[in-house]
């Protein structure tokens, strides 16, 4: 019996002392958090995609409240979240243009041959550094899905050996852009539909050898497009997304068949 009483007293006493210490700590060592941070964090979508440039939604919420960061950086949230944030913070801001990722390569299994059998780590960076990548084109999409794995919402799919972004699923966080070892992924305005689906900077003959749908640098599209909406960068035609381009002639006249409407 004595042992039972002793045990109860010891354990109970220890519990009381520790509980008291915790109660004091909660009172005197409390971290005072701005309640607005929690409120803003509650509004943000919680995808933690990092597209705003902060470590995650909580970090962005803190930056909005404490550092007056602009409230229009949350691309996945869109206009709805923006208006809620405006209500919570009193800031006003315009939503930035809705941008989506696009993989600027159209060299799928059928059109772009491989120069050797790659049997290594299934990762684009690893393939890219092994013999310069197994694709004959040194600029083309390798299709080992590094971008697809980086995408927090599963918007990128490998179709016929190359990565394709589903624009309606893309939350414009830019995670894929940072992963691609060949820098093929660009953020483009959602409304824009005409793209040059090639990133090869080689001269025409070399491109033709490596891919059936590559840009050979003929400059026809650059001449057809009004207001320099397509510009030549060396031997590659590049769409200037700041300018209007809605001209089907560039698609029809492209001898490399690399300009497409998506």
């Amino acid at each position, binding site marked *: 019996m004595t042992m039972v009483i002793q045990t109860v007293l010891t354990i109970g006493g220890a519990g009381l002392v520790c509980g008291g210490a915790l109660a004091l700590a909660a009172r005197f060592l409390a971290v005072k958090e701005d309640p607005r941070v929690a409120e803003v964090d509650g509004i943000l979508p919680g995808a933690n995609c990092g597209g705003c440039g902060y470590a995650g939604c909580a970090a962005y919420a803190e930056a909005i409240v404490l550092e007056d960061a602009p409230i229009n950086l949350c691309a996945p949230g869109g206009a709805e979240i923006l208006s809620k944030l405006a209500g919570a913070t009193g800031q006003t801001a315009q939503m930035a243009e809705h941008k989506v990722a696009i993989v600027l390569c159209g060299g799928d299994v059928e059109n772009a041959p491989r120069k*050797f059998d790659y049997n290594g*780590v299934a990762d684009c*960076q*690893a393939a890219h*550094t092994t013999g310069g990548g197994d694709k004959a084109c*040194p600029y083309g999409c390798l299709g080992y899905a590094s971008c697809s794995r980086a995408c927090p919402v599963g918007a990128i799919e490998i179709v016929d050996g190359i990565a394709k972004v589903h624009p309606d699923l893309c939350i414009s966080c830019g995670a894929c852009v940072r992963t691609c070892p060949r820098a093929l992924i660009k953020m483009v305005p959602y409304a824009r539909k005409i793209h040059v689906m090639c990133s090869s900077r080689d001269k025409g003959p070399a491109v033709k050898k490596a891919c059936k749908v590559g840009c050979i640098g003929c400059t026809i599209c650059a001449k057809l497009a009004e207001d320099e909406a397509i510009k030549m960068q060396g031997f590659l035609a590049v769409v200037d997304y700041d300018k209007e381009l809605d001209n089907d002639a560039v698609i029809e006249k492209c001898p490399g068949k690399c300009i497409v409407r998506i």
Partner: protein
Amino acid sequence: MGAIKAKFSAPGGVHPAYHKDLAAEQPIAEMPLPASLVISMSQHLGKPATPTVKKGDTVLRGQVIGEAAGFISAAVHAPTSGTVKLVAPVPTAAGPRATAVTIEPDGEDKWIDGMAPCPDWRQLEKKDIVEKIAAAGITGMGGAGFPTHVKVSPPPETAIDTLILNGAECEPYLTADYRLMVERAADIWEGALIIAKALEATNIYVAIEDNKPLAIAAMAEAMPEQAGAAHVVALKTEYPQGAEKQQIFAVTGREVPAGGLPLNVGIVVENVGTTLAVWDAVVNGRPLTERVTTVTGGPVAKPGNVLARLGTSSADMVEFCGGTSSPVAKIISGGPMMGFAQADMSGPTTKTTSGLLLLGPESVHAYESMPCISCGRCVGVCPMNLMPNELSQFLEAEDYETAEAYNVMDCIECGCCAFECPAHRPLVQHMRRGKAQVMLNRRKQ
């Protein structure tokens, strides 16, 4: 003088089938000039050289066509006289593209009036020797291609007491260094004395695996009398005895600290081919314009050791060796353990091309990589005492911080782990990718 036996042997290591008999008894054969030479500006570790010629220029053999772009870089010279046809990027053996100069030989093979021969090199100052080595564009010819003039000019506060000539040639199939030691022992020794003078090193060791008794005998016989403390050391035959840090331990018992260099323990290691190039540059005043490459493997009709000009294409070398007599499934620049697989035979010979290996379908298997079964065999064979099993799993999960903490940067990419792995995991590729990423992360900080 005879050879001494190595007292030590580095941990780990494997015993791949050597296949050296294919080319070992073939004397070095000089190849005639091919129709065109493609000379890469990136034949060494460090910054690629800057081309100094343009299309249409005529060049003479030994003329500088690429200037060293900084201290850790090396000059590139025209391997013969002729006309520059093109200056454009071409893929290197490892993959990425680098600028290359294409020369069409005029057939006269006329030397430029360049560096003066210097048979009495004993009169030269230390810095003159280093200058001559730099001017000759010599880089490590064993594989990594580290510029030799950097190696032989250690910081003044570092005392180098030992020079090791690396004649281990532990890579299967390759016999280029072996033939050099058998045929050019005296010149290699003189080259060693020149390097030792530049380093003020008092001990010279020539490290050779004990499966090359003829090379050991040739080097021991040619040992000069005035060499002081010079020895030929017979190493236990085991891959990778030719790896720098493993060889230093096997020969001297000294251990290079993690992340350190051989000069931290007072040692410089030079490949025997590099040593011969130093002799040629200092004594004959000839820059590095050619090297011996072993062209071998089952499908090669007449495997051999070819003295070819830098820039000779793989196809031309195979043609010189009688072409192929059976189907080719894999082309490797270098040896089977550390060489680089090639997509075709267009790649040019560089200062580091120690071999060109063709393998038939019977020797090439496309294994499917399986999950690690934790057998630990890779840990047992790793000569750097790393844990490739753990490391590869960290790297698969892209956990580069933990991989760095587990010393991924000490990996020498020798391939023992992947050779031994029963699950056929691409361990070396994981390490290479991990090392590149860790380097990138360090640079960002």
